[in-house]
């Protein structure tokens, strides 16, 4: 992890092969601006793009929160001993 020590393990740049921004884009009324895939499978792709976006924001806001959680059960176990 190249950014482990720099920015709480949060990467400043995300590069991917998918056009997430196009899937997220919507107009004032909330309708998608660009088509994604075809039919039902396209909607599924858009849904997953949204979920990826949510996860990305969570990652940026919480840093390595999730990797810390690995230690929580051990910490809780140690408490009260």
């Amino acid at each position, binding site marked *: 992890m190249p950014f482990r020590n720099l920015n*709480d393990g949060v990467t400043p740049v995300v590069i991917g092969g998918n056009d997430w921004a196009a899937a997220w884009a919507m107009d004032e009324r909330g309708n998608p601006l660009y088509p994604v895939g075809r039919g039902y499978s396209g909607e599924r792709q858009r849904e997953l793009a949204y979920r990826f976006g949510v996860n990305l924001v969570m990652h940026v806001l919480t840093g390595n929160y999730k990797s*810390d959680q690995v230690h929580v059960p051990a910490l809780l176990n*140690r408490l009260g001993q």
Partner: protein
Amino acid sequence: MTGSFVFDPLLPWWLIIALAGMAMTAVALALHRGLSGWAFRAMAALVVVAALAGPVFQQEERGRLSDIILMIEDATASNRLGDRADLTAEAAEALATRIEARENTVLRRITVADGVDNSGTQLMTALSEALAQEPRGRVAGAFILSDGRLHDAERAPDMPAPLHLLHTGRESDWDRRIKIRNAPAFAILDEEVVLTLEIEDMGNAPSDARTAALDVAVDGAEPRRFDVPIGRPIDLPIRLPHGGRNVLEFHTPVMEGELTDRNNTAIVQINGVRDRLSVLLVSGEPHAGGRTWRNLLKSDSSVDLVHFTILRPPEKQDGVPVRELSLIAFPTRELFLEKIDEFDLIIFDRYKRRGILPALYLDNVRNYVEQGGAVLIAAGPDFASADSLFRSPIEHIVPGRPTARVLEEPYRPRVTELGQRHPVTAGLEAEFDGDWGQWLRQIEVQPEGGQVVMSGIDEKPLLMLDRVGEGRVSLLASDHAWLWNRGFEGGGPQLELLRRLAHWMMKEPELEEEALWAEATDQTMRIIRRSLSENVGDVTITTPGGEDVVLPLQEVSPGRFEALFDGPDIGLYRLASDTHSAVIGLGPASPVEFEETMAGDMDLRPMLEATGGGSFALVDGLPRLREVREGRPAAGRGWMGITPRDAFETLSVRQTALLPPWLVLLLISGLIIGGWLREGRRT
């Protein structure tokens, strides 16, 4: 004036010997052949050889030098016990008179005082230094008047003359002391540490005593008395009562006839440190400041951080199948019911009621605080809302009531006048260069008790601290502390502020608002009193001797009052000011001078034996002085020897040649002519 023959050969010795050999061979040949003048020729050869060897009569004029005798008087604390000082002084005078009465003898007197920094009796250093200043060849002896206890035996010099010890011990001497075998400098709170100590009787102690009373006092409190066996190490399990400096005082009553009471008390100072601190951080939602809290707590290696962020509140119903979510359960029951007492600090960071923590759990949080826990609420806009954490059983302990207004405008946080005196915020400006950056949001709260140490927009309270029951609560009425962290408008001392805040909540002794303590350097102590009030009472110092000294305290910075006091004695000082009290031990825990108080030659014996000197007890009277030759035993029953060195200096040298050239010429020519005449007449 002394005279001696020396040779000053004109040729190398081997050449002279070779010439002599050749001459002898020639003479022997002459004798064999019946040469009548052979005796003349042999004598002529002898004269030549003798002239070549160059005999000289050397006369020296010598000045006799005096013998030097060193006398070292021990004036250290261990040689001032009882009547030792008088005994030493008397003997020194008597010995000095005797030595000075000897002809041609010079006495050098050296007095050894207590070594600096508790280094004890530096007798051998003094002896080495004195020897270095005198020519070795003139030193005829050295006398040490001491209790014989020294702490630099490894620096003993190579003595050219006998070294004698006149010690101040008595047969009847005895002393009881407390010896601390091992005392940790640090100990973890709530864990037992074992301290080993021993009460030891030295010398001619009353033999019927098997046990001795031992008083143990912690932080100057009323001592508790135990009966402990003498002469056996005792393991004393100790549990420190509080963090910071704990002063343990051990004392055994002074017995009749003891040499000194100075080693009957031992002071041990142990710093109490906490084991790992457990902090529970509950973030109500992911937000930009969340990482700030985490980083702060993670950066402290002594903190175990349990962090939960509510990523997805339970009321969210959007039809996502559970198997497509990767969420971590929030073990609320375990955290807030079963293990809540194990945490040292609980931080609610923008937390709002969401049906995750039932009222019962929050009531338990209130309980936890009242029984000594700590809760820090970093309020976001949620705190002003209807779902505010305030609208729960926690209401009773939170120092501020939200007015439901959220003020969103830039402002610069300020430390209030009270905050200048409070250890959490005192001197915060000095921790950061330049102006602090602005914050952009503040939750309006109505103070309900507690202390406002920082203010924001229009002096509205920003940081409030309060004590509830035995616990502590603080409320930070903004979630924008992270702006300082990210350097917004230059940033601010966010790290220092949050660190101090967290440590104050966890009851670090050095961040107590009302405190009295002292710092000691050598024999001077700086008494420090921190207080939130503007005036504090005088401090009363009770010295080890039981005297009371009252000193006024001067305010040196807001909320910090100081006084300086020079403690004349080593020992435990009790301080009291207003309702606070403290104890401090001045000087080394056990002065090295009083560790061994029995006088005798135990430490010095190898050195005395090496020089042929002896040791004598001064109470038996001063031994006679006697002259002995170098290398002979220099001590015996009732006498001690010095070795006169007969040193001299050469003032002038005069050399007279025994065979001057004219005499050689005359002798050789006379003998050769005599030989020639004799040989010529016979033929």
